[in-house]
């Protein structure tokens, strides 16, 4: 895509009557998409670049946002820790920890990290220069989550929002209701094991914590892929209770009867799952709102638990930021742009490449 795409976006924006000047400079001169990711020319840095760059600011530790191989990385302490767990010590030449709420300067551009409520360590990044403030949300949610700091709305001129669940059909129920359904099913089918598919960073730990908060005291069995990250969460003061490896050593088939097992969704289609007695496959994801998605994936007990904002949270957040202009990225841009139009807010899709639409 590159430069041609950018300039055509700018032309579109000016044709659409979107004021490209806010404050002292054009918003698109402060941040705009490049093949590597979202780029800030005056600050000379990228946000969540998908290719190795000189200087990267990272919103959170999910692998499509946090990649290895950048020369220098600026992120929260927890995001840096998570990157190190995933990629090893040398994932970047130099790293620098950002403190939430503290402003720092990069080539005269002011940078502030604010919590985004997505996963442990996740942050929005506010970029300010010559009176213009753009906030890149990264991924975010508004539902309460005991495993990470809550989203903080930041007033800004331009808000770059994710749109993973940017359709009015996505309305996440309270996560406590979903966990209650899991526990009810575990009581209904005591001879079977419940296999909960959940992404290894964030979702898995949130599910475990929700189980604990609902009074579930038995050991939770986990897939090996979750061990390091869960241990890290515990070291950060997030109590997940007793976690046991779901290995054959820890028991025969009967020992997993009635057990709740958490693992990455891919593991349940794998031969790994054969150690469990007549498993009920559960999947904790915002996509589970759509019955056909659950059906196609062979999910028997869909748990609608998401680390992304649903439609109501997206629209409420846009209003709260007070932004005059909204850029919509990875997900279903068209519906959110349409909603902004109806609300009289300037909006356009920002075509960033390399992010997983499916991620939740």
């Amino acid at each position, binding site marked *: 895509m590159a430069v041609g795409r950018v300039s055509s976006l700018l032309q579109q924006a000016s044709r659409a009557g979107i004021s490209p000047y806010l404050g002292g400079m054009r918003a698109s001169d402060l941040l705009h998409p490049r093949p590597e990711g979202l780029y800030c020319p005056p600050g000379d840095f990228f946000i969540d670049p998908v290719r190795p760059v000189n200087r990267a600011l990272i919103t959170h530790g999910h692998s499509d946002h946090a990649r290895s191989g950048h020369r220098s990385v600026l992120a929260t302490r927890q995001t840096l820790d998570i990157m190190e767990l995933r990629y090893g010590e040398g994932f970047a030449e130099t790293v620098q920890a950002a403190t939430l709420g503290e402003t720092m300067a990069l080539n005269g551009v002011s940078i502030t990290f604010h919590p985004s409520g997505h996963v442990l360590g996740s942050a929005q990044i506010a970029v300010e220069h010559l009176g213009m403030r753009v906030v890149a949300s990264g991924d975010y949610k508004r539902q309460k989550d005991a495993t990470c700091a809550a989203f903080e709305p930041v007033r800004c001129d331009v808000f770059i929002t994710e749109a993973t669940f940017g359709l009015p059909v996505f309305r996440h129920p309270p996560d406590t209701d979903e966990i209650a359904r899991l526990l009810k099913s575990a009581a209904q089918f005591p001879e079977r094991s419940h296999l909960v598919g959940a992404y290894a960073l964030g979702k898995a730990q949130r599910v475990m914590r929700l189980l604990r908060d609902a009074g579930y005291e038995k050991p939770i069995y986990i897939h090996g892929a979750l061990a390091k990250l869960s241990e890290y969460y515990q070291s950060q003061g997030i109590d997940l209770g007793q976690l046991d490896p779901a290995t054959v050593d820890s028991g025969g088939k009967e020992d997993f009867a009635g057990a709740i097992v958490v693992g990455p969704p891919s593991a349940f289609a794998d031969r790994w799952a054969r150690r469990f007695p007549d498993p009920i496959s559960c999947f904790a994801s915002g996509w589970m709102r759509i*019955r056909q998605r659950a059906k196609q994936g062979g999910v028997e007990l869909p748990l609608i638990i998401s680390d992304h904002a649903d439609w109501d949270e997206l629209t409420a957040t846009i209003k709260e930021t007070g932004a005059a202009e909204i850029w919509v990225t990875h997900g279903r841009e068209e519906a959110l742009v349409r909603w902004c139009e109806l609300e009289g807010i300037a909006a356009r899709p920002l075509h960033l490449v390399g992010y997983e639409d499916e991620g939740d």
Partner: protein
Amino acid sequence: MNRFAELLDRLVLTPSRNGKLTLLIDYFRSVEDPDRGLALAAITGDLSIAAVKPAMLRALVVERMDPVLFGYSYDYVGDLAETVSLVWPQSPGHIPNREPTLGEVVAKLQAASRSDGPKVLARLLDSAGISARFAIIKLVTGGLRIGVSARLAKQALAEFGKVDVAEIEELWHGLTPPYTTLFAWLEGKAEKPQRTASALFRPVMLSNPIGDGDLEKLDPADYAAEWKWDGIRVQAVCEDGVRRLYSRTGDDVSGAFPDLAEAMHFSAALDGELLVGEPSATGTFSDLQQRLNRKTVTPKMQQQYPAFMRCYDALQIGGEDLRALPFRERRLRLETFVGALDPSRFDLSPLVAFEDWQALEQLRQAPPHPIIEGVMLKRWDSLYLAGRPKGPWFKWKRDPHTVDAVLMYAQRGHGKRSSFYSDYTFGVWSGPEGAEELVPVGKAYFGFTDEELKQIDKYVRDNTVERFGPVRSVRADRKNGLVLEVAFEGLNRSTRHKSGVAMRFPRISRLRWDKPAAEADRIETLQALLDA
């Protein structure tokens, strides 16, 4: 309403029969009257509510939200009921203190007139959450489609009350929603409801398959033999002017076969096989298929494929219950009785005379009509007993057809099989020599041992060409491919399948690791069976 909504959501995604039974039984146990009875009626299709058309539903929702946003939403979800339940805007000032119960919802919908139906529906949707809205919409648009048959619901009732399912089937048509007397009896709080209605269903007697070595233990002189007709088992009951035609599980199928139902001018309960054509010129299974799974039948259809009943037992004649008489006695009464009925609609299933098992075996191998699928053996002294008692009745089916086909696609199973590729789509060769291609002819998910399942699963994983969700396409060409010997009971013509054929009851009978894919059967082999 929420518990009903939750039940629907769970049932639709639970593939195993036992899992469904557990969910239903728990629901009956934990939900009170009349809600549980209304839920039961909704599942068995006995709840009558004025229907709301999909166009009306769409009109209601676009009055309340931007049609463009609705369009994006509907495009994505693909199901109207689901989309509307999700996007329905709840006005913030109108959050109700509590959601309506199923009983309240049904009462409001039943009281609504045709003209104020949409308004009543809209008000109900305003008062409910997402899952409850979905359930309400399913109720008014008809057809829950949750993969639970009336039969399974009755089985759940039987297990809930620890009674035989035959007792439920026998009572069923005399009961009406919300079935409070039934639940009271099942919970041991009241006597069994009395049979008050006329022409009720009598639970049928079923047979066991002849197993290896069974025949040697039986004396041919103790048994009568009949052809086993491959039609639909029916029970024709006329009592006090009420005429009903039941399926073998007690569903009333009179509406699907009005031609036969109208010809029932007698006072009796007869057991037999529904077939198509005329007694003197019985139609084939494909003829019969024309009349299956239809809610309404046109006069033309009835004329072209008339239904008749081939009778083989009499449970009641006049006021006399014959079920406690031996088969020999019932048979004599049946012969006299059927002789006096309309010969174009009723005839007698003939007895097949035989000296010994070997002679019968020869007859079984060469039946006189293609719709015969074997022979039945009935002890001359057998009483008519509900269920499947071991000993008095046997079925001895014709050997199945087999075909060698090539594995094309495999799909992951559920529950115990969720980590196995256990559902197989297979095809046979078609097209000219040198340009053969595989055309799918069926799908099977049983017939193999656990050990064989592991082997096929490994084969699928090692030979995957493409993945689509839970389905993998497997390498299958002239040089590579796994040949499966597939057994099946018969073939039907099909316009829905590219191959033009649909198998009945296909299962994997053998894995042919030894057989090269190119030597699997061709479509012509199957087509020849169709024309036979």
